[in-house]
């Protein structure tokens, strides 16, 4: 069984990507990364200006993957109970009864749309679910079903009416992907697909939730050389100003990457290797996962903001050194 999963991994991966590409145009890399995140069991945060197809992308995933899906539209007045659910009083024949009404979090794919429009209090409602895959309401803790992952979208921070995500929240996202404007030819295709009156592409379910769980299990067993792991650790350590000799890190980094960052890199690199038909993790897998995995986990100081230094710039510097 496992052997079949591992041997067909690349095909299954390609099939899902191909199916999503029917709907999403010009975001091939983002599709792959989201799928890697889903299989690796991580949460994905997508940042981009409105109208770039973030929400459509997640909705398409929910259509292609045969698993429960729920969408939460984050607004400033959204309350935590709106996410987790609440205890309701039901009137029954023999009297009144308290019953827990599950919120939208009790799904496999949760779309947290415009997550940074909610207050930090509401955003924090996702913390437990994202990390421990449990929800605690009152004195009761509910276990979420596997697979569970949050696909969140956010508008760029400088936009009106946004609250930046707290560090702890950000750290729980495996990837933060920046959605950019598609290329010219892709925009043509988008127009053709959406406003030219053509029929919407028919999407078929390509993978069940069991399959996704199996794929994750197999991927995590993939062999990885110690030197490759070591390289990932070195990269992570170089993000800490007290553990590096890179001047840029010392100057601009307020808080380096947590060990969760390495876990994310390794897990994502394993899935990536399998998705490319390799049965081991290569260094290039690690290097490619550095930006989506670590960029949002590194917190820069005011000086960096003043000098317009981004975390990607610093990571590039670190990679130059480590490579």
């Amino acid at each position, binding site marked *: 069984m496992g052997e079949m999963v591992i041997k067909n991994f690349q095909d299954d991966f390609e099939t899902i990507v191909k199916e999503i590409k029917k709907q999403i145009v010009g975001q091939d890399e983002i599709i792959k990364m989201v799928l890697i995140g889903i299989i690796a069991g991580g949460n994905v945060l997508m940042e981009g200006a409105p109208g770039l197809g973030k929400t459509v992308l997640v909705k398409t995933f929910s259509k292609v993957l045969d698993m429960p899906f729920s969408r939460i539209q984050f607004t400033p007045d959204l309350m935590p109970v709106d996410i987790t659910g609440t205890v309701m009083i039901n009137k029954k024949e023999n009297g009144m009864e308290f019953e827990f009404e599950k919120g939208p979090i009790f799904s496999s794919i949760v779309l947290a749309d415009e997550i940074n429009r909610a207050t930090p209090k509401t955003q924090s409602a996702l913390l437990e679910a994202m990390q421990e895959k449990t929800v605690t309401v009152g004195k009761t803790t509910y276990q979420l079903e596997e697979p569970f992952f949050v696909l969140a979208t956010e508008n760029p921070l400088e936009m009106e009416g946004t609250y930046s995500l707290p560090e702890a929240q950000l750290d729980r996202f495996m990837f933060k992907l920046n959605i950019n404007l598609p290329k010219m030819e892709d925009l043509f295709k988008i127009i053709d697909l959406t406003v030219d009156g053509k029929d919407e592409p028919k999407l078929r379910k390509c993978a069940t939730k069991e399959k996704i769980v199996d794929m994750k299990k197999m991927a995590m067993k993939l*062999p990885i050389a110690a030197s490759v792991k070591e390289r990932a650790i070195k990269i992570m350590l170089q993000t800490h100003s007290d553990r590096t000799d890179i001047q840029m890190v010392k100057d601009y980094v307020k808080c380096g990457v947590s060990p969760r960052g390495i876990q994310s890199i390794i897990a994502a690199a394993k899935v990536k290797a399998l998705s490319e038909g*390799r049965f*081991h*993790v290569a260094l*290039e897998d690690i290097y490619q996962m550095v930006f989506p995995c670590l960029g949002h986990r590194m917190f820069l100081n005011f000086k960096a903001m003043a000098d317009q230094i981004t975390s990607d710039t610093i990571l590039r510097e670190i990679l130059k050194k480590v490579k």
Partner: protein
Amino acid sequence: MKKNKIDIILNKLRRKIWISNIVKSLIDVLFIASIGFLCFIIIAHITPVVYVFNKGLILITYMIILGFIVGVLRRPSIVKTALVGDKLGLKQRLETYLEYKNCDVFICEIFKEETEDTLDNFNLLKKYKFNIQWKKVLISCVVCVLSVGIYFIPSLSMDKAIEKQDINKELKEEAKNISELKKNIGQDEEDENISENYKKEILLSLDNLEKKLNKSFDYNEGALQVSDMEKKLKKMNSKNTSEDMKCIAGIFDGLDNEENLQKEMFSYKNVNTYNKLNNEEFTDKEQERISENIKTMQKSSKNYNDKQKELLNKIKTTTEDKNLSGNKLQELIKKDNKKMEKFEKDAQTKLTSMKERLLAKGNEGFKSLGGEEKGADFAKGENDDHKNGEINNEKSDQMAIGDDGNQRIKSSSGVGGSGIGGDSEDDVAKEGKVDKNNKVTRLGEDGNNRSNVKGNWQNEGSITNKYSEDVILVNGEFKSMDSMYNIFKKEGMEYISKQEIPLEHRQLVIEYFDKLNRGQQNGGNGY
């Protein structure tokens, strides 16, 4: 255990990397050695360096050997090989393989299969190319050619070095004779009786001499070494015999004259010094006692060497025949020493002729180098060797090596005595104050006999050989003496004047000169 396909490829790659390392190392070393060689040649043009070309070649050879050894030692580990392979495009497959080689989880098996498939389509060995730095090779060759070219540019230093080399070659030839001499030791049947210690000591000394001659670049230095060896040889024999005598002195234990006899034995310098023994007569009882002493000595735990044992046996046999006397004992000792003396004489003869050759070569004078006239500077005898006494020569065609004291060869009048002469004139050479341009009266002229002249013939102290011209001759034999002298000067004087006259031949020499003086005991030409 059947080797995995990946392992086989890894090992092949490892070998290839290894060879590459050796080649790289050799090229690096060749590059360094060629520059070293060039420096060597340039230095040789500034200051004389003997055998510079050979030394340069040896340097290159050693460096190449060193480079090869370094290359061999730099055998890549299998992990390093895997790293190299991965860098060629295998994306950490080999490294991961080495880590999960023994893992039998199915995903690892799949990984191994996939790696094997990849290696089938990926000619790893072909992809790894030898990194030969042709530039370095070319530069090294150019530098070597340049060095050879520079080597042949004539220069004063180079000429000096070549001359030294020629001298050294000749000294090496002489060293071969020493080697022959070493081989001869112990080959004669009689030599077998020479004690092992003595043989060892001789061989060691001859070894040293051979080494010194091989390293020497000066005839005089070589001659000096040979001269030292001569002396050493003589001392060795004397020391050995003296020890033998001390060992056997115990034969006189319990005799009436024990103390005197033993003292005589202990005071051995050479066999001729046992004068007291000559007059000694042993009674039968004393001979019995000696015989018993010998028996006791033979039974004792003391280790006597072959020579001592043989001598004891002979004395014992003689005492048993009641035939032992002081004279007989001296004869036995002499007979025993003859073997040693024979060897010593042979060796001495060879060494002496060697020294003579070297001195003759050294006396050829100073060759003018590069057209410079140098001989003139040395015409007044400025060639001094202070290493072991003095060498002084007033004529450019004469030279001597000083021994323990001072030796001088002079074209002067009179006979030198002991000590070093000053520059005073008209001194009478009684107490040996004769030197340059001195006018001296001949021996016996003023009634002195030879005993008045202090100083021995090149034994201890100083000897000054003088050529007398204006000496009044007793029997008017000046002319004939002069002609004799000329003959002697040509053939023998050179030899005599440079040699130590062995003490035991002192009498002979005195007689010789007596005959030269036509039996005039106290007269002659003052040689």
